[in-house]
């Protein structure tokens, strides 16, 4: 029985898949319409609008599957033949890349490579920036060559992921129910909000929010929040377990919708939150602020990776797709939801001056700002929470990360949930 091994099964599947794709003829224009690329990733950028636009602009079909971060990691690591394009975060890339399930991408084929923001190339937003803790995207963004399964520090010409989307996350609050300014991460554990706070139950991200809080409380200063020792993990989770036992938390959330419901219903007034969730609460007419905090943001970045089994016409189509992705339409679409595009200057062409001013430059809106789906988000005269791109991305304190002690952390996290 023990000889039935998932690996051998997968290898068999790989051989079968290679057999069918290698034979594909290379007559681009005629066959492109028959190409179907299967993309999967977290919900943030797996949008049907993108798939529709791909069909219109490029002619081929993009099938999208949205999963949660854990499932995405699992699938990228264990089922390389179940997808052509992986839309994953950089910390997931750190876990998945060494498995060899993704193939390095030749940056000379990427038209707008030179315009990609510094964060994804040398790690520096501006020449004076310092690099934040955690898994900064540029540290896992390049590999040594076309066969590389390692990471290299310099811009080697072979990228692991082509960056597409990123943002700076912070706490969301209900200003109408709090009635005072909030300016530090430690407010999450302030007894004033007993029974009205929440944190997300996704260990790899939750632990970073916890670390921001612990540091803000003055309990401990981490040498590297993104790579804690066992003692640091015990300390961090210990503080939160105690708070949990004292009834600080109303609930924990795992999916985007849960965080929206908790906030909109007033069950929770302060919690870790994602940018579009704030937008969703606001579009119900309920005040909600993505509160900039003194200690800075917890940031994340995502990109597109190609399955190792992608070859021939399909791979050409995928490069075409990536070039189209960085060409601005998607960037504008994402930026109008509050994310940032890897090549902001191309997105500008697809945004109105008012939108560009509000979302990117942190200027007052001159007219109503609406989401790409038509919901009004801000009125004339309002400014974006946190200000301009350089203000927000310039005060990143740490990046979402995966630690060396990841398995230990996950066990401790489970204990925290069960405590």
């Amino acid at each position: 029985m023990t000889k039935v091994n998932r690996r051998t099964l997968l290898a068999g599947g790989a051989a079968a898949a290679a057999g069918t794709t290698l034979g594909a003829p290379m007559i681009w224009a005629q066959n492109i319409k028959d190409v179907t690329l299967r993309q999967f990733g977290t919900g943030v950028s797996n949008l049907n609008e993108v798939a529709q636009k791909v069909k219109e602009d490029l002619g081929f079909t993009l099938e999208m599957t949205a999963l949660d971060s854990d499932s995405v990691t699992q699938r990228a690591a264990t089922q390389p033949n179940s997808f052509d394009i992986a839309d994953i975060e950089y910390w997931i890339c750190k876990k998945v890349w060494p498995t060899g399930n993704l193939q390095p991408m030749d940056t000379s084929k990427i038209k707008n490579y030179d315009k990609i923001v510094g964060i994804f190339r040398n790690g520096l937003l501006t020449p004076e920036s310092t690099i934040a803790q955690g898994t900064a995207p540029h540290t896992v963004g390049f590999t040594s060559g076309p066969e590389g399964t390692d990471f290299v520090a310099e811009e080697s010409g072979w990228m692991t992921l082509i960056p597409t989307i990123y943002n700076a996350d912070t706490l969301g609050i209900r200003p109408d129910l709090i009635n005072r300014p909030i300016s530090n991460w430690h407010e999450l554990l302030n007894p004033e909000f007993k029974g009205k706070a929440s944190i997300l139950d996704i260990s790899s991200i939750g632990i970073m929010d916890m670390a921001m809080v612990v540091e803000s409380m003055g309990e401990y200063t981490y040498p590297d929040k993104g790579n804690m020792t066992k003692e640091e993990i015990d300390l961090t989770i210990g503080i939160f377990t105690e708070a949990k036992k004292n009834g600080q938390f109303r609930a924990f959330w795992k999916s985007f919708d849960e965080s929206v419901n908790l906030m909109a219903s007033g069950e929770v007034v302060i919690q870790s939150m994602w940018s579009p969730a704030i937008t969703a609460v606001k579009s119900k007419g309920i005040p909600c602020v993505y509160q900039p905090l003194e200690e800075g943001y917890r940031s994340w970045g995502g990109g597109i990776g190609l399955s190792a089994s992608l070859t021939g016409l399909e791979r050409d189509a995928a490069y075409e797709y990536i070039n189209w992705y960085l060409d601005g339409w998607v960037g504008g679409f994402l930026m109008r939801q509050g994310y940032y595009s890897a090549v902001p200057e191309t997105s500008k062409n697809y945004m109105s001056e008012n939108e560009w001013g509000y979302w990117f430059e942190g200027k007052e809106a001159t007219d109503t700002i609406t989401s790409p789906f038509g919901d009004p988000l801000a009125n004339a005269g309002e400014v974006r929470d946190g200000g301009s791109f350089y203000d927000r991305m310039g005060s990143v304190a740490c990046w979402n990360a995966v630690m060396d002690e990841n398995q230990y952390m996950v066990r401790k996290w489970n204990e925290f949930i069960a405590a």
Partner: protein
Amino acid sequence: MEKLLRNKAISGWLMAAPLTLVLAFFLVLPIVLIVVVSFWRATEFSIIPAFVWENYEFLFGSSVTYQVFLNTFKYAAITWALTLVIGFTVAYFLAFHVRTQTWQIALFLLCTIPFWTSNIIRMISWIPFLGRNGIANSTLISWGVIDEPLEWLLFSDFAVILAFVHLYTLFMVVPIFNTMMRIDKSLIEAARDAGASGVQILWNVIIPLTKPGIMIGTIFVVTLVMGDFITVRFMSGSQSANVGRLISNDIALLAYPSAAATAVVLLLTVLIVIGILLRFVDIRREL
């Protein structure tokens, strides 16, 4: 061929074969696989066939496991007690107080109406009802019963058990009602003629005769509650854990061997519980 079939032993085996095969394939084999996998090793991405005890060592070495099992038993016991009282009362009313069969069937169907929707929907609809600004709290406040909203209504053990009782009471009603309907009415008349009071009839005649129904209902409720994970996750706002949630967390993190080990322990626990229950009543004899 005909001669072979006339052989009683062989035809007996043949007739039993389809069911045996189905059970072997869909019940025994999956369980055997779970047991086998529970001895494997896992790294973050791969599962390695092996024969190691580390999954069990970790499971029994962690205080969380005991807490979580205790919690699971707590949910099962409280839910069992409440569903039993409610289920028995409902079945008793249907069987002995409703006179005509038409009404019995009509009212019984009424009990099943909630089952026409998915249990996830039935469960989630409690959330807006019980919330801080939900219907329950705002009604109580407008009646002047309370001044401040009750926080423990939602995302608490109360909410979890409420949802369990709501979801699973019918599993108690049906088997109890079924056994009650088969009680010979003349036994009750005889008891009354012999001078027994209503309470005595209930205690000495009806309850002993409904035991098999109670036991079947108990098995349903206990196994359903012990195996659940989604109700606990939603109704406690992810703040409480039972064994099912341990398993689902492990699966989410690709730790299949560890999930399998937990599942094996849970399976054994449930089997032991059922074994104990069957000591009290011999269901096969009573049915």
